[in-house]
């Protein structure tokens, strides 16, 4: 019976169970291990009771009830297995099968189909409906009545049982409105919204949750029978969210990846980059053999020859000029073992601290102990976002940077009613659920944050235990009105945000690439640190300076940066019995040193700095001046073109390893397939080089893993307690009137880094370069979609087809870097806090 009002006791199949109020009969039964068939029910969606297969009998209720939508009541007596229930389920199945084509032999869902399974368990093999089945035919050329709804989604309406799971998930979870239910009765169909296609970042989840074969991915269709594929536990190797994946393989080839639900992280949803990104492993144009530059040409070679040459050259340079003349850049999408082996190789064999994994940020820190590092080391948990009643996203295009964190934010806002404030220099997808979407003048974020801090103080909403009496002298601007003038955000909105922050009980602060990529990273971090202290976010909530790539956090924790923490250096010394005493150079310093001919050689693994470094000309000039460049990658790239030795690298699906996601969660992934096309994993390449140099740094991967464990156990400094207010003075940026439009270079919605364009399915979403501008800007420039736009900065010029954005509404240009024939970074300058350009129409 009712117990304090919050727990309810009921009886199911003769056994008593106590569940929290609000639990459905289906959930209660599941808890007890009682199986009830479902189609339209999904653990993360609101129940609708559309399919009615989950019938149960409840005493005192005259008819069968759908257990998915019936709340448990005190004293309820439920039967899930009576004759009446069985008859009811049979009738529902007979009803669902009236028009279902039963084309299982040619249906991709066969073997993992809920309709097959439930008919097998509860159905009958005969039907009383012996008339012709209704058949949807839109395209008579197609044998199976398939209609393409999007680049990767095929619909077969005949198989659809109208559970609406796809449409509900699309709206409820993803906030996408490109799929709907149209018509009614037996004409009801699932279709793309008028004039649109189903091409959101989450579209791949729709076939995955489809209980039948009505929605299928082109990726997986007609390739392998599901029972003939082996499942391998993997982790996504792209962004830092760390979604859990299952890779489905057969005969050393991967055929699909699907979500391996982890409620702490992804809740069973993955983005399309994670879903189709595995295809790079089986891509056709992988590098297949090492290449060595002879004269002006790179010619094919053998591993032995390439490793021999690298070992000889690096030893020569180290002996002659010292290890400080060798630099190393490694991609943070590599596993811990590779990152660690890289750092150990550079430090103990080459005696150089020049290692970095951040090859796409401007002007990185030159020593340990900056505020940015402190803020970034604070604890952040994806699942804890749900505890917040206010989420503040600063400088992050969240859906692009962290698709799954984005879903958790959406859930917290739309399901639990939290308020969301976004502060960005341009509008983002999160705007549709934001309480206030604050779009500040690019380059004025520190002024805006000062304004919020001042407002908190003047409204007496600041954390009570912080002395803010001096803040006025530490901040410029130090009034809300001047902050308002600088940033273009009205005083009312700044005050309202401050008020919301002050009143919120639990705050999640998410900080994105805008801050991390900025040369003013440190100043912005101090500003955010001040906000954290004054609003008390460190005491009521969490702060996420979110790491970008699958293993960025791992690279940071293992010290694959020129200046690791003293604690970490101590541990390395202890393990290695050596640590170089030279000063290390960060990625951008290495390029500068190369440009000044102070660096002779560089070893780049998995990274593409000429394409990624936010000053293309600078990166190219620097790297071209190197005497000896070694690049390991999966594909040819702008950087491999310049290399003296090119090595074919394995993708993460081809070896086992570990990633640390943005929460600091260590996750193991298994090898799905063997290294493809004669490639090698990075740790193996490094191992071979060290053996060739007679200085082996590890005997086995286990040894590497044991050493990694020791390093990971090193505790970071307790940053949270040592947060102190700092000085933040905004200085006005000089803007040339000729080049006044802010330029933002980002990844395309469906791409990540320089590899994914080789994944066929992702290329299907987009593989052509474009520049995105607002409709107003397009009108001003008299440009229509796909017409040519000239984009000029002080240092470069490119011409791209224009895309008129549905989201952007201010004067900025956003360019996706992933498929530019000319790298977009030639427009960027490393010292500029905001890259600025001028735009003009290209007349033919």
């Amino acid at each position, binding site marked *: 019976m009712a117990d304090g009002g919050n727990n309810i006791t009921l009886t199911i199949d003769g056994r008593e169970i106590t569940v929290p109020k609000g639990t459905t009969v289906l959930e209660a039964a599941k808890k007890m291990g009682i199986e009830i068939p479902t189609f339209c029910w999904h653990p993360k969606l609101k129940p609708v009771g559309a399919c009615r297969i989950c019938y149960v009998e409840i005493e005192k209720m005259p008819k069968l009830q759908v257990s998915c939508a019936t709340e448990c009541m005190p004293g309820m007596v439920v039967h899930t297995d009576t004759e009446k229930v069985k008859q009811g389920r049979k009738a529902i199945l007979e009803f669902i099968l009236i028009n279902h084509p039963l084309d299982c032999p040619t249906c991709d869902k066969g073997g993992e189909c809920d309709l097959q399974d439930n008919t097998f368990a509860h159905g009958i093999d005969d039907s009383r409906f012996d008339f012709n089945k209704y058949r949807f035919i839109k395209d008579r050329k197609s044998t199976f009545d398939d209609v393409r709804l999007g680049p990767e989604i095929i619909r077969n309406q005949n198989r659809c049982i109208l559970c609406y799971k796809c449409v509900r998930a699309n709206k409820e979870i993803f906030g996408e*409105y*490109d*799929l*709907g*239910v*149209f*018509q*009614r009765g037996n004409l009801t169909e699932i279709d793309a*919204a*008028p*004039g*649109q296609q189903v091409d959101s970042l989450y579209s791949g989840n729709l076939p995955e949750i489809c209980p039948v074969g009505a929605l299928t991915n082109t990726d997986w269709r007609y390739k392998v029978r599901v029972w003939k594929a082996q499942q391998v536990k993997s982790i996504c190797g792209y962004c830092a969210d760390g979604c859990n994946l299952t890779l489905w393989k057969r005969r050393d080839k991967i055929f699909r990846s699907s979500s391996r639900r982890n409620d702490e992280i992804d809740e069973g949803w993955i983005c399309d980059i994670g879903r189709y990104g595995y295809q790079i492993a089986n891509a056709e144009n992988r590098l297949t053999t090492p290449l060595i530059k002879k004269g002006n040409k790179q010619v094919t070679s053998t591993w032995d020859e390439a490793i021999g040459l690298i070992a000889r050259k690096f030893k020569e340079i180290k002996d002659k000029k010292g290890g400080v003349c060798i630099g190393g850049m490694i991609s943070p999408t590599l596993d811990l073992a590779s990152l660690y082996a890289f750092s150990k190789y550079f430090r103990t064999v080459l005696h150089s601290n020049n290692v970095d994994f951040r090859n796409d940020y401007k002007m990185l820190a030159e020593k340990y102990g900056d505020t940015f590092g402190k803020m970034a080391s604070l604890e952040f948990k994806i699942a804890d976002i749900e505890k917040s009643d206010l989420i503040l996203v600063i400088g992050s295009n969240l859906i692009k940077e962290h698709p799954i964190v984005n879903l958790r934010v959406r859930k917290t806002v739309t399901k639990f009613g939290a308020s969301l404030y976004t502060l960005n220099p341009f509008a983002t997808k999160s705007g549709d659920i934001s309480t206030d979407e604050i779009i500040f003048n690019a380059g004025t974020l520190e002024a805006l944050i000062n304004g919020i801090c001042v407002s908190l103080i003047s409204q007496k909403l600041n954390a009570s235990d912080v002395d803010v009496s001096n803040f006025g002298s530490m901040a410029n601007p130090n009034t809300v009105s001047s902050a308002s003038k600088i940033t273009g955000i009205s005083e009312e909105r700044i005050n309202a945000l401050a008020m919301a922050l002050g009143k919120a009980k639990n705050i999640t602060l998410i900080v994105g690439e805008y801050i991390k990529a900025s040369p003013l990273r440190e100043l912005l971090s101090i500003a955010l640190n001040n906000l954290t202290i004054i609003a008390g976010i460190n005491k009521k909530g969490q702060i996420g300076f979110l790491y970008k790539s699958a293993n960025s956090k791992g690279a940071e924790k293992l010290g694959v940066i020129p200046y690791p923490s003293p604690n970490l250096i101590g541990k390395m010394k202890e393990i290695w019995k050596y640590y170089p005493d030279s000063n290390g150079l960060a990625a951008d310093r290495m390029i500068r040193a190369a440009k000044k001919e102070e660096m002779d050689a560089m070893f780049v693994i998995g990274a593409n700095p000429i394409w990624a470094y936010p000053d293309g000309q600078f990166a190219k000039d620097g790297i071209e001046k190197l005497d000896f460049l070694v690049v390991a990658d999966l594909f040819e790239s702008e950087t491999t073109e310049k290399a003296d030795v090119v090595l074919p690298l394995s993708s993460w699906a081809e070896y086992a390893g570990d990633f640390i996601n943005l929460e600091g969660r260590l996750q193991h992934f298994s090898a799905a397939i063997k290294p493809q096309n004669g490639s090698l994993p990075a740790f193996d390449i490094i191992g071979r080089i060290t053996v060739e140099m007679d200085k082996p740094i590890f005997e086995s991967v286990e040894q590497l893993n044991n050493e990694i464990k020791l390093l990971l156990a090193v505790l970071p400094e307790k940053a949270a307690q040592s947060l102190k207010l700092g000085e933040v003075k905004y200085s006005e940026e000089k803007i040339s009137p000729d080049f006044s439009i802010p330029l933002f270079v980002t990844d395309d919605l469906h791409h990540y880094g320089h590899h994914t364009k080789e994944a066929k399915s992702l290329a299907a979403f987009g593989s052509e370069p474009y520049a995105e501008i607002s409709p107003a800007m397009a009108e001003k420039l008299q440009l229509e979609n796909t017409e040519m736009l000239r984009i000029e900065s002080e240092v470069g010029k490119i011409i791209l087809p224009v895309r008129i954005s549905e989201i952007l509404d201010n004067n900025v240009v956003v360019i996706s870097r992933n498929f530019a024939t000319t790298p977009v970074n030639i427009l960027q300058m490393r010292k500029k806090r905001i890259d600025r350009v001028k735009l003009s129409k290209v007349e033919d």
Partner: protein
Amino acid sequence: MILTPESVAKIKEKMGKYPHHKSAILPAITIAYWQVGHLNEEIYKEISKIINIPIVEIAEAATFYTMFPKEPVGKYLIQVCHNISCALLGADSLIEYLENKLGIKKGETTSDNLFTLISVECLGSCASAPMMQINDKYYENLTREKVDKILEDMKKQA
């Protein structure tokens, strides 16, 4: 814009009556239908912009209700009930009569754009079967003579 400023104003007025704009979808569709006489994607798009609800939700509601024609129809939309009571009292032959008289098949529009003939599910007037609805008016207890007269009157008015 297909929708006139008057229609837009009416839709906006309806929006104010509901706590959530989504509730204004049906009134908005109806207003558009009264103005245009049918609905299409262009109209969904306009409504979507006015009430700030994704176009898919407008289209879902509009296609669910078969009472809104999705293609242009004649000035008089003749909807003959073909459900059981009317069928028993001769709806089928009535439809055939109308087809012959107007020179069109069910689902078609006369060349002078005056009449469109369709048959529909029960209109809830079984006691006065057979019956039909022309635009928003019911015509009941129909006989061939009655139908002749109704059509004559309409032609005169047009």
